């Protein structure tokens, strides 16, 4: 039996904003279930009191002065925009 349901996959499809056909949902459900079954081995490890590691090196906040350093790239950056209006990116309405 599948570990996760088709409805859960559909919910994930909304959260991730990845549109899916019914066929894709079913395949994803089976493949994810298989992967999650393999991940279950972690439950065999006693992690009581073990600190989590997010990064293998100590990460510190890097500060710099708030100065514009990339202004010379404006045209090249804007050239990548799918919908351009001068130096603005055209977007869809958020509220209908």
């Amino acid at each position, binding site marked *: 039996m599948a570990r996760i349901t088709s409805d859960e996959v559909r919910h994930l*499809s909304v959260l*991730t904003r*990845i*549109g899916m056909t019914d066929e894709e949902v079913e395949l994803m459900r089976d493949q994810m279930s298989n992967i999650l079954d393999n991940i279950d081995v972690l439950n065999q*490890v006693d*992690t009581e009191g073990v600190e989590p590691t997010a990064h*293998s*090196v100590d990460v510190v906040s890097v500060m710099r002065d708030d100065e514009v350093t990339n202004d010379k790239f404006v045209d090249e950056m804007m050239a990548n925009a799918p919908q351009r209006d001068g130096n603005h990116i055209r977007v869809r309405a958020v509220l209908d």
Partner: protein
Amino acid sequence: MDKSLVNLTAHEARDMLDRGDVSSLELTEASLERIEEIDDRVKAFVTVTRNLALEQAREADVRIAEGNAAPLTGIPMQLKDNICTHGVPTTCSSRMLEEFVPPYDASVAERLRQEGAVLVGKGNLDEFAMGSSTENSAFFPTHNPWDLERVPGGSSGGPAAAVASGEAFFSLGSDTGGSIRQPGSLCGIVGMKPTYGLVSRYGLIAFASSLDQIGPLTRDVRDSVIVLNAIAGHDPRDSTSIEFQPPDYTAALKTDLKGMRIGVPKEYFVDGMESGVEEATRKAIDVLKSLGAEIGEASLPHTSYALAVYYIIAPSECSANLARYDGVKYGFSEQDADSMWDAYEKTRQRGFGPEVKRRIMLGTYALSSGYYDAYYLKAQQVRTIIRQEFESEFEKFDALVMATSPTTAFKLGEKMDDPVQMYLNDVLTLPANIAGIPGISVPSGLSNGLPTGLQIMAKPLGEEAMFRIAYAYEQATDWHNMTPEL
């Protein structure tokens, strides 16, 4: 086409350039001719930058004539296509970034440009570096130069195949779970992943930020050292770049191993390992012993959990990193949509391939409310245990050695329908990413006519010990001189 030119190492080419025996333009033309001759079969390149390469080669020749050459000035190179190159398309082998032209260079690309290396093109990869065979490229799979019906490994399959087949003298890859070392092994070349934070990730298109690291793919260990010398060092633009002044790693290139303590972790002879791989690894250990190393048994008991840790952490980080691809600012954008939400969903449905979608969904699941503790937090805790086990072994040993990949190159299509089987390719490499330690793969022989790799891992910033062992082994054997017939 002068085949002997394209089979040189970068340092041999350097010597010839400095003596005036060859020009950068000649080397570059030889690389470009080789690409033209074989790349319709190997498919290592997403983009070939012919005009840029010829222009950079001419500039390099001027610089060499003026006596201002750096170690890589005038040497033709490729870069994996997830490393941003100013004005040169950088696709991640994804439909999502097919049209993307970066407005800036990644730090490593900038350093190599300043060094005067010549860019001949960009290397194919599994889409967004997610995969172990380069079959997940949205454009085409890359073929292994040793057997064109087999995969080159991945995700840096384009870089490994290009270097192995004489299309470029070296390349840079990225390694999140083995993506430099495993293709290096499968293509019979040297692939090296530095300590996390030693090389700047600025301009590397992010996959899993706490695991990703850029490193060289080269024809021998000396070249690996020369390329690392060029790209290592602190960069304020990468907040995880460590404050460390790298030494000149060429000092580590010694041919004896007297006094070196090398551990062989017993857990790395895994079930399902190809017998030829195991045999090559055991023979390599005998060679290390004959060079004066003290060999001892090591143990990393939680090794078998590393794969599960990786397949929670990497997808989780990827789900956050790839949230930026919304079709608004850059990249693929589906215009045929009814609303903003519809546009997001269609853009990501059509822009991403199956493996990328799987990982985004898996990561989103692992990070979602109710599952966070059971998956993500648990994985981070086991990550601590794995890291501590390495730390403890590195108190006893200068380095650990094992095979790079449990098998040699497999057939195209063989593992594409079973993600879990595909993930098992990285079982010997991904612990180094989890622990943040350096690792290198050097050619260790042939099994049924296909290359095998010996992997050497060292403690964080222990690159010198790692290179010393790799170099001494390489110089005592002849495997690095093997080239595939094409």
